[in-house]
């Protein structure tokens, strides 16, 4: 992707940024890279394995990244939505980062593959279904050529519908089984671009709202709070689920809440920082049929 490499080289040469955060080929597929010299720009790649949401590295509390200086961030559409989230919540300044948008036709589920797998209905990540930002808007520069609609069906929504069709007790049994494997390592939190709190509520001890012991009771409290704190903010990049070492289908929970805020408040997360997130704002005529 020479257009991307040239853009990065120009930004570094002109001194507009000190570091370009993108993807590189590692020993095990692609992974994030922090290019600080023009010579290394040809390590930058972009293909269907670039699943990471690089907006996580804009969290100002990551001093090991912030200390590298002003950054240029390579963003596909869903990453740009996360950057919009950080701007919407005043975590970063718009002119504090240069956004190199890249046109994206969908990615696969895992970055680990010797070369870029072709996109098919089976290999495409479920987040890419009906993607509306194949041409990211929140960018300073846009590279790459136009991409067709990604293949695949709404498997995520189908699995949620299947769970919704069950009764509460069956769903409770399903989630007790899934969440009992959680070891509360918080990889889901650390992988999320919008989980940027200095000290997460789960690490607060006075009072200790969430039990940090990874038994099912503590795990329910943790995952309920994580999902609730992301309601209306989550961009659906699925990185939380990919980071989970024990394969808990966390994307189902976050996607469900995306459906809920759409249904209740007609809100879809976008890459426009001006549109306020639904929770935290209100309308006097919000639905209240659940309130007797």
């Amino acid at each position: 992707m020479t257009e991307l490499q040239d853009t990065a080289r120009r930004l570094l040469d002109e001194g507009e940024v000190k570091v370009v955060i993108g993807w590189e080929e590692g020993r095990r597929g692609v992974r994030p890279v922090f290019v600080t010299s023009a010579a290394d720009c040809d390590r930058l790649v972009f293909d269907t394995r670039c699943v990471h949401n690089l907006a996580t590295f804009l969290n100002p509390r990551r001093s090991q990244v912030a200390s590298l200086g002003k950054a240029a961030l390579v963003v596909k559409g869903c990453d740009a939505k996360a950057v919009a989230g950080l701007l919407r919540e005043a975590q970063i300044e718009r002119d504090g980062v240069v956004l190199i948008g890249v046109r994206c036709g969908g990615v696969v589920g895992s970055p680990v593959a010797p070369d870029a797998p072709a996109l098919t209905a089976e290999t495409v990540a479920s987040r890419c279904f009906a993607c509306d930002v194949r041409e990211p808007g929140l960018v300073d520069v846009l590279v790459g050529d136009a991409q067709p609609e990604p293949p695949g069906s709404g498997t995520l929504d189908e699995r949620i519908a299947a769970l919704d069709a069950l009764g509460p007790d069956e769903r409770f049994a399903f989630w007790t089984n899934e969440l009992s494997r959680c070891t509360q390592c918080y990889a889901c939190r650390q992988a999320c671009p919008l989980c940027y709190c200095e000290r997460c509520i789960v690490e607060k001890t006075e009072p200790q709202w969430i039990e940090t012991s990874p038994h099912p009771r503590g795990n329910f409290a943790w995952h309920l709070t994580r999902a609730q704190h992301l309601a209306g903010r989550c961009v659906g990049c699925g990185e939380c689920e990919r980071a989970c070492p024990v394969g808990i289908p966390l994307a189902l929970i976050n996607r469900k809440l995306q459906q809920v805020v759409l249904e209740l408040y007609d809100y879809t997360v976008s890459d426009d920082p001006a549109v306020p997130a639904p929770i935290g704002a209100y309308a006097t005529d919000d639905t209240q049929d659940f309130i007797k």
Partner: protein
Amino acid sequence: MADFEPRITAFVCNWCTYTGADLAGTSRLHMASNVRIIRLPCTGRIDHMFIVKAFERGADGVIVSGCHPADCHYTAGNYHARRRFGVFRELLSFLGIDPKRVTFSWVSASEGGKWADVVNSTVERVRTMGPFDSYHGLVGAASPADDPFASFETPAGATGDSAAAPASHTGGAS
């Protein structure tokens, strides 16, 4: 479960519902005594974690009540709460916690009668649903003896602390 006495926790706002509940008391209205009231400045201050912590500590049902829209002492607390609980109610349901165990209501300072109805209807509804054992049993009882993590057996029936080995397929759960 006719003879079961459910334990209900109520989180109420200080300006409207708490006063309404007080009015219900002074008017000697008949109300079930299963409810323990926790007073908070506003429904806007009622965090979703309060509901989860109530269930963790043994509640079978929860009531969240505050001022009607436009009555809020702090102007918009109840509007924010309305959106927050609109979403959280769906989240609870999705993870399998029956939303019928949580009652949301607006009760103004003058609606002592309505408060009595909210209490009685919630108690009856939760009584028929039975104790929330599945949530209370999520961890073995206090004594370490029957905490399966310590002794590796997979509990036969209950969806209690399901994993002997943390990654075990729960016996009888699904």
